Structures are given as C-alpha cells and as structure tokens.
C-alpha cells in the first residue's frame, strides 16, 4: 500500500494489520521547514519516535570563501548567512576583526550599531513570530508582523540603501553616518510598536488553542539546553539567565538598562513568551539609545589595507537566534587565515531531536518553528 513505498524492508514481513513504522520525509520543499531543511521522521502512527535532520542544501562554503577574500571583502558575505538578521551578522564580524586589530569603534558608531542591531532583533523576532504562528495555523499574525517589520526595513533602507542584506557596518565603525531623521524614525516606530505587540499577544497569548499547541511541547530542560549548546532565546526559555549582551557586553550595551527575560519550563510557550518580551526590551534599548547619540567620528583609524597582527580571536555576540561567534585567525596578511562562524541556528537545531521525540507530527512543525532557524545560517 501507500505506506510501503518508503518504509523499511522489514515492514514487508509484518502482518496484515500490523502497525507500520512509518518513515515520513519532511522537506526540503515542505512549507513549514523554513527553507530547505529536510527532516526524516520515524513515526509510530503520528507519534515521532526518532528524527534525523538533513542539512546542507544551502551550503555555500562561506568559511572557505573567507580565506580567499580580504577582511573587508568578506564582510558582505556574512549578511547572507542569517539573511533575516543581516545587521547582527555584520556587527559580529566587524567586532571580531576589530578585536583582532585591537582597535575600538568610536562611541557614536557603537551607539548607532546598537540601535540598528536591536531593530534587527525586533525584525527577526517578528518574522519568527509570524511564521511560527502560521505553522500553528494562525494566519493573521503573519501579516501584522510583516507590517511592522516593513517599518524597520524602511529605516534600514534609509540608513544604508539596502533592506535585507544591509552590510550596514564597516570594520572600525560605520561607513555612513546616521541620516538626519534616524532618531525620529526609530522613535516613531518604537512608539507605534508597543500597542502592536499587545495586538499579537491578544491574538495568541491567552488563546486556548495556542496554549494547547505550545504548552508542554518540545520541552528542553536547562541541563539539556546547555549540554546541547543551545543559546539565545532557546536557552533562556529553559530558565538560564544568560545573555551575551549582559555577560560580556559589546557595542554599547553596557550603557543601557534592560532585562533578560527567562522562561521556566523550556517549552514552546516559554520560548514564545521570552521572544515577545525580548522585543519589548529591544524596543526599550532603542528608545534609550536614541535619547543620546554621541557626536564624533564614526570610523576608527584602521587604514585602507587591513593587516591584523598574527593571532586569533573568538568573538561572540547575542544575535537574535543565539550566540553568533566568529573565530578568526590572522597570519598577518590581508586575508584571514581562517574564519570560523559559530552559527546559533546550526547548534540550536541539534536540540530538535531531543525536543521532538514523543510528540506528534503537528508538534514537529511547532518545534521547528520555535527553534527559529534560518537555513542560510545552518548550512552556511
């Protein structure tokens, strides 16, 4: 029968009414695998008893490319990894190279970087919220989320001319200074955004169906999360209060007050709540930052040709999806000897199997959504 086509050969020996162990292949063109993730699910009925993620469909060899580009030339490539949070990627890379060069961006650059990165975090979380809700069957939040994301992208466009792959920062600071009305635009967005978050929460937070679909689904305990290397909202939802912005401040984060939201059970609902709260906190950071943008230069003295002294550096930032680390080795030439990118999505995706076992196919979709992966970053 139909099931037979991909089940193991031993199923052939099963009796007429035997419950088949079904192997279901999800993706790489499945609507809710968020790109080209392919998951092989071993099912007992609709219950998942095992899973395997097959990745690499979007592998472009970014790390290899890095070894053949100069430090500046490689900067735009990082935008193409997590393409829904390009600004964060760029920030991590620029700061890593700055650390390697032992220079520091001027304060004005740092603050503008912080503003844009936090806007990007909101945009990334909005995209996550919309698609996650869509996966669980709520059609409408997607459009609301895109409406707000559009505002953020417009700010990016005004700032640097690009919306998605922005390449907003340069090593040593910024290429462009803030445009005249940046503060005003950010403020307007932040003011309008507060009631909008409430709208999303009205639609979902107390919704019985939403609760039923997310509570107790894909539980990841704190110990498991740490052991599996999960970072970002996934880790925080498990109750670990750890945010690189606080633990090892970079950019201008040490100047601003914000909270680290944490969950308690580490289920899908907690991750939802953590991300919602993170959007609020990001909004607060933006509001604080635009209060007082220092004047001054936007680019440190780094020279046209970058030749960092030999050595190596690992620099991690809190990207919207988790710890985004750049491990860069310099040999003193204009090209990096090795650039290793520690992608949060890749590592977080590893927790999928742990989270999905024992759940239903419908939950698999919710779990993929709650991990907030971007395949461009997983596969690099």
């Amino acid at each position, binding site marked *: 029968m139909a099931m037979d086509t991909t089940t193991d050969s031993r199923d052939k020996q099963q009796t007429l*009414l035997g419950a088949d162990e079904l192997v279901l292949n999800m993706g790489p063109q499945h609507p809710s695998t968020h790109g080209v993730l392919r998951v092989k699910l071993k099912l007992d009925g609709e219950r998942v008893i095992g899973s395997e993620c097959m990745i690499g469909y979007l592998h472009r060899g970014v790390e290899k490319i890095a070894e053949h580009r100069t430090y500046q030339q490689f900067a735009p490539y990082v935008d193409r990894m997590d393409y829904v949070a390009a600004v964060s990627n760029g920030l991590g890379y620029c700061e890593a190279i700055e650390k390697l060069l032992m220079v520091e961006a001027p304060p004005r650059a740092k603050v503008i970087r912080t503003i844009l990165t936090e806007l990007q975090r909101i945009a990334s979380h909005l995209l996550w919220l919309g698609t996650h809700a869509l996966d669980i069957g709520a059609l409408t939040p997607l459009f609301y989320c895109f409406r707000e994301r559009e505002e953020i992208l417009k700010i990016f466009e005004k700032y640097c001319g690009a919306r998605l792959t922005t390449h907003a920062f340069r090593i040593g600071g910024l290429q462009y200074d803030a445009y005249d009305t940046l503060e005003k635009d950010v403020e307007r967005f932040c003011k309008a955004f507060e009631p909008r978050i409430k709208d999303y929460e009205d639609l979902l937070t107390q919704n019985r169906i939403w609760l039923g679909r997310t509570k107790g689904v894909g539980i990841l305990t704190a110990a498991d999360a740490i052991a599996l290397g999960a970072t970002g909202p996934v880790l925080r939802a498990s109750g670990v209060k750890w945010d690189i912005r606080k633990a090892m401040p970079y950019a201008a984060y040490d100047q601003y007050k914000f909270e680290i939201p944490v969950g308690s059970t580490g289920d899908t609902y907690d991750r939802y709540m953590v991300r919602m709260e993170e959007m609020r906190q990001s909004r607060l950071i933006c509001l604080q930052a635009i209060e007082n943008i220092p004047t001054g230069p936007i680019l440190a003295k780094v020279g046209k040709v970058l030749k960092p002294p030999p050595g190596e550096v690992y620099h991690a930032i809190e990207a919207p999806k988790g710890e985004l680390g750049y491990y860069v080795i310099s040999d003193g030439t204009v090209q990096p000897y090795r650039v290793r990118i520690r992608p949060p999505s890749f590592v977080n995706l590893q927790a999928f199997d742990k989270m999905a076992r024992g759940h239903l196919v419908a939950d698999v979709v919710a779990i993929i959504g709650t991990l907030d992966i971007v395949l461009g970053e997983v596969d690099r």
Partner: protein
Amino acid sequence: MLDQVIFYFFAAIAVISAILTVTRRNVVHSAIFLITALLATAGIFLQLRAEFLFIVQIILYVGGIMVLFVFVIMLVNLDVAVRQLRFARQKWVALLISLALAAQVGLMLWSTGKMPGQGVPVLAAVPADKLPLNSEAVAKSLFETYLLPFEIASVLLLVAMIGAVVMAKKRT
C-alpha cells in the same frame, strides 16, 4: 413502467457491484463496489417509497460502516492481501451456501405464484399520497408494536459498546 425501469436499473447495479465486490483483487476497489451495491439497494428502498429506510441505509451503512471499513483497509498492507489467494478454502462452502440461498428464494417466489394468499404478501399498488408517512410508520412499529425487541436490542448494543470501551481502556 417507469418504476420497473428504475427497479431493474438499481437491481442490475446492485448485483453487478456485489459480484465485483468479491472478485476484485484490490481491497479498496472491492470496498468501492460494496458502497455502490449499498447505494443501489438504498435506491430500491427509495423507489419503494421507503424514504426513511433509504436514508438510514445511507447514513448507517454507507456513511458509517463503510467509512470504518475503508479506514481499516487503508491501514492494511494491500500488497499482502493481493498476493493471498482468494476463495482459498471457503470456495466450496460459499458455493453451497449461495446455492441453498438461491433455492430458498426461488422456492418462495415460485410458491407465491402458485398459491395466492401464502408466501410473500404482495402489496397492492397504493398511490403515493395515500401511504402513511414513512418515518412515522417506522417509529410506530418500533416503539409500539415491537417495543420489547427494540429495547432488548438497544440494551444489547449498549452492552457491546461498554464492552468495547472497557477492552480499549484495558490496553493502555
């Protein structure tokens, strides 16, 4: 005249699909033909102006039982079923039983023709509007004439239902 055409139409469908039901190798196809046979029977009920039986036939047999049938069939490994030889052991028994059945029916029809007043009572054609309302007639006979058997059957079904629930509970 028209009644006869309709009757033979439905009867032919019923018989042909009944035969196809048992001869098809593909179980799902058999199920489809069984549905057709049941629908044709329902059609004959309708033609006899037994609307209530018609709809009960559809709701219970087609909409209820056959759905469960198909449901189970889909979970069954079809290839195995196809490979198995049909009419393996029951062939002769089946033949015997159907012969006996045919003989019975034939005898009944024959005796009806021979001896009026005995055998199957043939209803005189009654104009449709003179017939009592069908569902009410069924209800009357069930709840008045045959109340006791009806109640016994209900209790029996209830017992079966509870039994099924208990058995299902025990497994988990």
